[in-house]
């Protein structure tokens, strides 16, 4: 019994630990130094900024982590704890203004960003380096240095070799914006590959259906080995017997009313007025007419 409890506890631990926040999933995704026309902060100033991206599928709390531009002083600017906005959801970004005045708010850094420097993101223990990004000396104004995804599925990022157009507060798209259609035009200009593959897929799908319906049909018809074993007689034999029994019963018992009912059902079926949309079923529904209407048979009350 103890083993079961221990196993359950271990399982719970695994589940909770897998959902727990992982600071190592944070990256410094983009940095802009000279801000002439990019975003304005809450105080109306155009500062440089640092963007942090959560590449995991879970929520990560930035609170307590540090940003710095000095390798020897990794705790230069702390991100305050207790602010709900520091919780980054999956694939979300946070933008920190490098105003040099930490007291301006949660999302303001105590230093300014400069070219030819490195920005460090440090874990809340103040020692573990989570990520860093180098700012080149040649970074033009209003251009940023950013990390772009080379594998969107695995969330693998590399620093872009060239300055990029700033995209604050949004996921950095990879430089390769080629659409599927453009890619297809390049790789298969005459469309032959797509055509052959598509025809094969259409045929495969319908051949599988053919096989499945064929097999199920055999089972229902009684031709399949299994059903043959289960019942000695097949459906055709049974239906012939039933038909013979019905005809004998009709011969013996039927009067004109039965024939009239069958004739009326067929007539209604041909008119398509009472058929209830089921195959092989003819239903006679009682329709309302002046003869059967209760309302019309009432006498008018005297005024």
């Amino acid at each position, binding site marked *: 019994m103890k083993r079961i409890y221990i196993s359950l506890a271990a399982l719970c631990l695994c589940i909770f630990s897998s959902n727990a926040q992982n600071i190592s999933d944070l990256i410094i995704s983009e940095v802009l130094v000279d801000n002439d026309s990019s975003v304005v902060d809450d105080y109306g100033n155009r500062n440089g900024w640092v963007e942090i991206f959560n590449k995991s599928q879970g929520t990560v709390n930035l609170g307590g982590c540090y940003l710095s531009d000095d390798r020897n002083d990794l705790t230069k600017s702390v991100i305050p704890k207790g602010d709900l906005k520091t919780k980054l959801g999956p694939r979300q970004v946070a933008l920190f203004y490098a105003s040099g005045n930490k007291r301006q708010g949660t999302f303001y850094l105590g230093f300014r960003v400069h070219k030819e420097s490195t920005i460090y993101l440090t874990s809340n223990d103040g020692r573990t380096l989570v990520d860093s990004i180098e700012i080149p000396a040649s970074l033009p104004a209003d251009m940023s240095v950013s990390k772009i995804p080379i594998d969107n599925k695995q969330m693998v990022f590399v620093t872009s070799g060239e300055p990029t157009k700033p995209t604050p507060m949004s996921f950095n798209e990879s430089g390769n914006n080629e*659409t*599927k*259609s*453009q890619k*297809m*035009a390049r790789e*298969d*200009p*005459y*469309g*032959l590959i*797509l*055509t052959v*593959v*598509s*025809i094969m*897929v*259409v*045929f*495969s*799908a*319908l*051949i*599988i*259906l*053919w*096989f*499945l*319906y*064929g097999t*199920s*049909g055999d089972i*229902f*018809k009684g031709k399949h080995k299994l059903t043959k074993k289960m019942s000695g007689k097949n459906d055709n034999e049974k239906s012939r017997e039933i038909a013979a029994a019905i005809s004998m019963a009709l011969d013996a018992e039927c009067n004109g009313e039965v024939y009239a009912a069958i004739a009326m059902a067929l007539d209604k079926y041909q008119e398509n007025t009472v058929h209830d*949309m089921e*195959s*092989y079923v003819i239903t006679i529904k009682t329709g309302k007419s002046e003869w059967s209407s209760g309302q019309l048979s009432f006498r008018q009350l005297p005024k």
Partner: protein
Amino acid sequence: MDQIINSLSQFWQFTGFCNMTWQHLLMILIGIGFISIAIIKQWEPLLLIPIGFGMIIGNIPMFPGLNIGIYENGSVLNTLYQGVKQGWYPPLIFLGIGAMTDFSALISQPRLILIGAAAQMGIFGAYLLSLLMGFAPNEAAAIGIIGGADGPTAIFLSSKLAPDLMGAIAVSAYSYMALVPVIQRPVMLLLTSKKERNIIMPKPRQVSKKEKIIFPIIGFLTTALIVPSGLPLLGMLFFGNLLKESGVTRRLAVTAGGPLIDVVTTLIGLTVGCSTQADKFLTGNSIKIFILGLLSFIIATASGVLFVKFMNLFLKDGHKINPLIGNAGVSAVPDSARVSEVVGREVNPENHLLMQAMGPNVAGVIGSAVAAGILLGFLG
């Protein structure tokens, strides 16, 4: 007096007469033509009348900025058009089609499914031709789907792949669907001998209720697992069919196959018609699309017929398939099956092919939805 003249002059600027161009007039005449064909010839009236009248509505020239045009954000027509643009009318129509369609003919003779696959060659033939005519792959795929002879699928795919061409593609698809008897008959006669047309096929067996209930579940799982991108169409088609065949959701099936599909068909037809504003519709591309659409129907019909002849090479006497049902592999339900019946009876009045042709016909619906899913997966 001057004020009155000025006011009248200003009013004149707002009228359609003042803003009318020959292109608008041409489109209005085409709309009237659609309505006339629908009423006089009774070709696809449920579609051609809404589309035709939509063309007239969409081509009333108007002063811009009144927020009433179909392309003006927030207008009533624009709101209704979102069902086409965002692609949620076609799956609703597929729900209704599923709820109305009896797949017994297909279940009883599963080998006929392959004809539904072969007829999809029309889609890919038109795709190749469109590329040769200079269209981009996504546009070529949207044009190619006209060959599926399935209006909702054509609208669904073109709204995803080539929204700019959607009006021309939808009108082309529905026009040729209305002209199925005219287009298919000569192709069928050309490709078959009198002896082949006289082949009498065995009657389809009776299908049990259990088989009908299992059909949509197996069909959906198989096709959707192979082509998940076709999920909106395939899911709704088979769901609608399950509503019908389960026997316990009669009210839902009746609603889906009756009032719901009627409402959506009216809206889709009207808004597609409205979207053919002269300035967006009368272009060189539209003419190319109409030519390619016609070719795709011809290729699809020929492929279906020739494929049956190919199948017959491997079938014993008594099990051979009449090639006249090959045309029904396109999914214009039930018009193309009706063409098989009519052409078959011309040779032998006793040879009824309608039920036989319904097999490939409904297989064509599945096939074109699968093909649309593949194209969307590759190019979407």
